[in-house]
């Protein structure tokens, strides 16, 4: 085994940041700052899915497939959010700006449950402090445009913890460089 190969094993959870679409992406070795907002603690595994099933074509001259195309691809980030401030809850349902405050007394915050027909679009960064496979360096997935999909159902119980199962579906962003419209992975190497 080569000396630096152990770094190729990627371990540890990532932090999730969101920002309005079009927000400048921070350097990989810089913790994202405003307007990037860190969603709170997540519980359990985080997953990046590179969905996109191939369609295979056949002809009468061959018994095996002769061509394959990917008609659709659908990157998706899933994680479970347990830090349920109304701002976080609102961002997943639609937008944090839906949260309103009242000085009271008692002081309150309110989040409408109605999500609306057109979801708010976000940019999302999934950042790990040692996500680089080339050393003890940070790395991140950058998705410049997407929406929170799914039907989160926080469940309340005596021995459990309410959580929002979040599914971020990536949308094409034609303002990005060719090939990066659905996002990219960037890691520090030295």
């Amino acid at each position, binding site marked *: *085994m080569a*000396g*630096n190969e*152990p*770094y190729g*094993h990627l*371990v*540890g959870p990532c932090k999730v940041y969101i920002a309005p679409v079009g927000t400048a992406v921070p350097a990989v070795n810089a913790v994202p700052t405003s307007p990037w907002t860190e969603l709170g603690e997540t519980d359990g595994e985080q997953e990046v899915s590179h969905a996109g099933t191939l369609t295979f074509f056949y002809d009468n001259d061959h018994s095996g497939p002769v061509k394959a195309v990917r008609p659709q691809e659908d990157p998706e980030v899933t994680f479970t959010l347990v830090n349920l401030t109304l701002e976080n809850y609102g961002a997943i349902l639609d937008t944090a700006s839906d949260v309103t405050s009242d000085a009271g007394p008692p002081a309150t915050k309110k989040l409408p449950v109605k999500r609306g027909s057109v979801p708010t679009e976000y940019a999302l960064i999934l950042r790990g402090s040692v996500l680089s496979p080339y050393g*003890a360096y940070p790395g991140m997935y950058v998705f410049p445009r997407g929406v929170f999909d799914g039907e989160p159902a926080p469940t309340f119980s005596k021995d459990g913890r309410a959580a929002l199962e979040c599914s971020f579906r990536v949308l094409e962003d034609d303002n990005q460089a060719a090939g990066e419209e659905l996002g990219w992975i960037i890691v520090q190497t030295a």
Partner: protein
Amino acid sequence: MIIAQEAAIALLKQDHGLNELVEQRIADKHRFGNGWSVPCKAIQVRADGGPTELYLEVQRQRLEIICYGESHYEALRVFSELQSVCRRTVKQEVSTWQGKGLVYWLNLVSAPSAWRDEEIGVDAILVFAEIAVAENPIS
């Protein structure tokens, strides 16, 4: 080959906060009566079986960790620092006799148990952990 138990001890020893709290008393066997005063804060880390990696050159090791203190409260302070180290540890380099090692994680796998070592008369907190370490030294 990097030994997981040694890597765990090296990892704990290089944490400033924990090392300062136990005044560098972190070892594979306690030294009460042999250099360590009775009672005092200290940590003993002992290999305790656990899972194995069949395909990867990674050492996985269950560890029995005993946090000693002048009282259960003081032992819990040691445990609390240990817990912080565990939460922080992701792909961390450590120095061992076999070279520089890479610790992937050090996770607690049990809640603490209060206990007293009657033989030496020191209160302790017993906890189990699991460590994963790259088998080969990193460059």
